[in-house]
């Protein structure tokens, strides 16, 4: 084994392995995180969103005719022409589950409400 071969096997080869792993780990484009990283205490100046569950009869397979498969929408197809399932109105700027529009308040008292409150 010549000196050159020794250097190649014991120095260059391990270094190249290290460099490859380093590049895969740290070079940009590998893993990009979408969305905001929320940190407690930072201000929240995004549009309010209101997510609601999918209606019971929603198709669970790929959307068929009359359904849209909106990007960022739910996994289930939704009727294209309709708004949210309970007739609250067409959803604007919705993503995720159906987002309701925050229109004029129509408070209807239904009885004593329960619940809880928390801060952090």
């Amino acid at each position: 084994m010549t000196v050159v071969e020794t250097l190649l096997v014991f120095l260059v080869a391990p270094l190249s392995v290290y460099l490859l792993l380093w590049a895969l780990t740290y070079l940009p484009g590998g893993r990009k995180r979408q969305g905001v990283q929320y940190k407690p205490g930072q201000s929240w100046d995004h549009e309010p969103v209101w997510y609601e569950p999918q209606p019971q009869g929603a198709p669970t397979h790929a959307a068929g005719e009359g359904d849209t498969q909106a990007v960022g929408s739910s996994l289930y197809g939704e009727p294209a022409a309709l708004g949210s399932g309970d007739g609250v109105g067409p959803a604007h700027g919705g993503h995720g589950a159906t987002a309701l529009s925050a229109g004029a308040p129509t408070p209807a008292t239904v009885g004593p409400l329960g619940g809880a409150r928390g801060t952090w």
Partner: protein
Amino acid sequence: MTRVLHADPHDTGTVDTAPNRADEGYDTVFSYRELARLDEALTMSSRETGLRFTLYIGDLGKQTRLRAEELHARGGDPANSVLLAVSPGQRVVEVVTGPSAARRLPDRACALAVLSMTNSFAAGDLVGGVVNGLRQLSDQAGHPRLARDHH
């Protein structure tokens, strides 16, 4: 070289080609994966319990409780619905249960869920907190048929 021409959109969209929600700018508050988690948590907890869980994320104004109750009344089927209103900017979470939902979800159970949610929120994990809170709430509420047999 070709140049991109800024053509005005023609108003010739049909039902199928009209701009829809997918064409609007995607607000990147949550990633797709987080949205899918939220969607699944809301949908499955609502289906299991028969209650209607909704999640509001946004500012709640000065009187957070009043605003949350107002939102709760505005959603569909307020008696049976449970609203989780999270205001990350104000660091407040409100859970509002309708009258018949409150029979299956006592305030103490809501407070416990809120406690676990605020723990996650304080660590910066909004989606995880919401998902865990929904899981706790739906576990507490149980299945409607089982609840009916029980009483």
